[in-house]
């Protein structure tokens, strides 16, 4: 069946920080751009980022992009690509200044410059001591940034398709990506969006886990679309646990709390991070702090009746600092943990927060896959930016503040690169006649199926499975069992049904379509984790406790077809500076 079709020069799937930074470049250059989003743009998950944007402005302490680069390489446990990391850290001050010029309400110093706070894993002079690098707007940096980007897109007259869900990529026989199929959630209509450049900016997929800081919309839609179109996913075993999610609720408490001087305590009242990271202590990188917290809990020094959390103490900062720099944290603690942090500590546990892996790209956002001996052959027409992409600047563990930076730098660079390709001078390659068939078949199954399992039940089972089999500590037995369970769940996903068959704003249908994406992300993650026989960054294997650079200093690529794995080399050579060779990682 032929779908109604709309044409654009460029199409962006997702209106978070990365998508809207890219769209600004494209709109400003006069391209016809459509930005598609499941939610109104300011509801995208970038809005929930709290602590800051990393950039070596040096407003409050001496800093350099090279130190930022070193910290990022070290934070990545040497799995990050050093050319991409150099590019990001060099660009950081520029993109932050641009954001300020757009109206971003950064906090300010007495001299009128942007306020910067310390953050985990960020240091001066190659690990010597903590540095003030996180450019902050109180503890609402993501909110301020997302609204600022939306505001500028209003000014640039970017065309948004609000409450539209992307379904599948359209590729022709040569493999060129020609756009997507999409569902207008309000009307239930399915439309082909035909574009010369398609940018995936769909964010993370933290909703494959039971306890997550992520929003409900973070279902890995771009990853599911890519996987179904035969594109591999890179480094999906690396999932970041944020050290401080509110115990029981999962809501994020920014690392900025520790940046401002907050500390973690065990049941003995001991500041235990001094033992695990004598130099940076509570501001070691996230994988290190999360593992240390879990170790404390495992060894019986957790707090509360079940000894299953630790405490984040910040009352010693005083009400003035808390009310000025961390007002939302106070709100969250009161609402979700029944404690006022001005007086009492907040119960926290490591909580799934960020996906280091994603759709493999180069620094222009072009999606790259192995082909004919070249590990990085460009997929024509397809780009990915932000959390859904793996460029790879975060490697095996992302540093706090580098995610907002990633969105700005690579959203912008993909936009600039697409502008340089002069798309308006080309005609659209024709859509294949069967472009909509696959998506329509997915929808037809949901419309006709009855008596199957409920989407919520299968989804919850998937989240529980990932939580217990692909968590902070991993081993062969646990992961192998996890793979088996996830594969069984895949079969159950195909047999779900929904009770609601209506067209108008059918959120049951949307959730069923999201589950198709979640299952791909879960498979990629647990299969990749099982195969990697080492501990690196966020992947901690009790049966392979050491990092193994001889065998595993390489990126994983997972293919949906046959659950196949492949590997490609890490870029150890930066663009202009000397390489930072792998060494032991201590904080």
């Amino acid at each position, binding site marked *: 069946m032929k779908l109604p079709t709309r044409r654009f020069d460029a199409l962006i799937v997702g209106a978070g920080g990365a998508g809207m930074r890219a769209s600004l470049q494209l709109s400003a250059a006069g391209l016809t751009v459509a930005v598609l989003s499941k939610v109104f743009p*300011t*509801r995208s998950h970038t809005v*929930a980022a709290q602590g800051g944007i990393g950039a070596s402005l040096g407003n409050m302490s001496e800093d350099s992009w090279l130190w930022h680069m070193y910290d990022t390489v070290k934070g990545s446990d040497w799995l990050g690509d050093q050319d991409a990391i150099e590019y990001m850290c060099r660009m950081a001050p520029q993109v932050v200044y641009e954001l*300020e010029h757009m*109206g971003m*309400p950064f906090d300010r110093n007495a001299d009128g410059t942007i306020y910067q706070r310390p953050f985990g894993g960020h240091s001066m002079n190659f690990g010597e001591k903590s540095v003030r690098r996180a450019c902050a707007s109180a503890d609402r940096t993501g909110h301020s940034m997302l609204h600022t980007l939306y505001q500028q897109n*209003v000014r640039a007259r970017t065309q948004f398709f609000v409450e539209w869900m992307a379904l599948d990529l359209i590729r022709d026989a040569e493999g060129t990506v020609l756009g997507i199929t999409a569902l207008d959630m309000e009307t239930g209509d399915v439309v082909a969006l035909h574009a010369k450049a398609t940018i995936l900016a769909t964010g993370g997929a933290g909703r494959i886990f039971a306890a997550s800081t992520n929003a409900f919309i973070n279902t890995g839609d771009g990853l599911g679309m890519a996987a179904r179109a035969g594109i591999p996913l890179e480094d999906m075993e690396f999932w970041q646990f944020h050290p401080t999610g509110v115990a029981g609720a999962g809501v994020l408490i920014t690392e900025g709390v520790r940046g401002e001087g907050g500390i973690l305590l065990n049941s003995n009242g001991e500041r235990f991070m001094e033992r695990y990271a004598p130099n940076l202590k509570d501001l070691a990188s996230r994988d290190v702090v999360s593992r240390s917290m879990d170790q404390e809990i495992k060894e019986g020094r957790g707090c509360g009746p079940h000894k299953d959390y630790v405490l984040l103490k910040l009352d010693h900062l005083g009400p003035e600092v808390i009310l000025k720099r961390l007002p939302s944290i106070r709100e969250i603690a009161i609402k979700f943990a029944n404690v006022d942090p001005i007086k009492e500590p907040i119960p926290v546990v490591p909580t799934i927060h960020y996906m280091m892996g994603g759709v493999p790209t180069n620094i222009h956002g072009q999606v790259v896959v192995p082909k004919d001996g070249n590990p990085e052959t460009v997929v024509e027409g397809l780009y990915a930016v932000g959390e859904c992409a793996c460029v790879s600047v975060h490697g095996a563990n992302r540093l706090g503040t580098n995610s907002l930076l990633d969105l700005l730098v690579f959203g912008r660079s993909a936009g600039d690169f697409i502008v340089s390709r002069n798309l308006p001078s080309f005609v659209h390659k024709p859509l294949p006649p069967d472009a909509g068939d696959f998506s329509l078949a997915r929808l037809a199954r949901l419309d006709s199926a009855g008596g199957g399992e409920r989407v*919520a039940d299968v989804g919850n089972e998937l989240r529980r499975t990932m939580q217990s089999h692909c968590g902070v500590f991993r081993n062969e037995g646990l992961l192998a069992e996890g793979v088996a369970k996830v594969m069984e769940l895949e079969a159950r996903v195909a047999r779900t049904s929904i009770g609601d068959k209506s067209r108008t704003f059918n959120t*049951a249908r949307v959730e069923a379509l999201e589950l198709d994406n979640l299952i791909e992300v879960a498979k990629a993650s647990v299969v990749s984790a099982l195969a990697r026989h080492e501990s690196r960054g966020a992947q901690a294997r009790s049966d392979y406790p050491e990092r193994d650079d001889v065998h595993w200093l390489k990126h994983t690529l997972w293919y949906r077809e046959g659950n196949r794995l492949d590997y490609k080399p890490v870029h150890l050579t930066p663009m202009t500076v000397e390489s930072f060779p792998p060494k032991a990682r201590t904080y």
Partner: protein
Amino acid sequence: MKFRIYRYDPEKDAKPRLQEYDIPLDSHDRMLLDALIRLKTVDDSLAFRRSCREGVCGSDAMNINGKNGLACITNLKTLKEPVELRPLPGLPVIRDLIVDMSQFFKQYHSVKPYLVNDTPPPERERLQSPAEREELDGLYECILCACCSTACPSFWWNPDKFVGPAGLLQAYRFIADSRDQDVNARLDNLEDPYRLFRCHTIMNCVDVCPKGLNPTLAIEKIKDLMVKRTV
């Protein structure tokens, strides 16, 4: 826990109805949104918006026992049963608790909600003193949930002409920004019997704002500036 929820599916229902639910909750169900998600596992046709579940994205605004609020930060313990849930008042209903927010966003867009400064920027940041930056506190935090505008009788009567508290709060956010150069045009844009002056300081907006913001105060400041520039 007992609920009474506004239901309307344009494909099935000639007119809206209230549906009763009685559902056992579990000890982890803390907020109203948790209960709604549990309800949806029983009746997947119930439609509502939600995303961040922590009060920062503004998706799940609805009318809760007669007062606008966000489901995700409304503690179940504070609610009298049966909990009556309705869509935000004054906007067209698409389905169940989902309203068409076009009019709301049209008014937001009408205030030119973006910084205007056409002097070439410096190589670094534009400087702003801490005191100047503080002028934006209580303004920039808005999450565009529409609780305020849809609690405002003036907005109900004239949604096409009155900007409404959310839009006016954002208008003032840019007027108050030391970096913005468009203050006069912004005031011109609002100098109109309806756009600004339909605010009769009923203050429902202040009462319902889930972020504790004060649109009425911002509106008063805009009115003061209007007066000041005429004398």
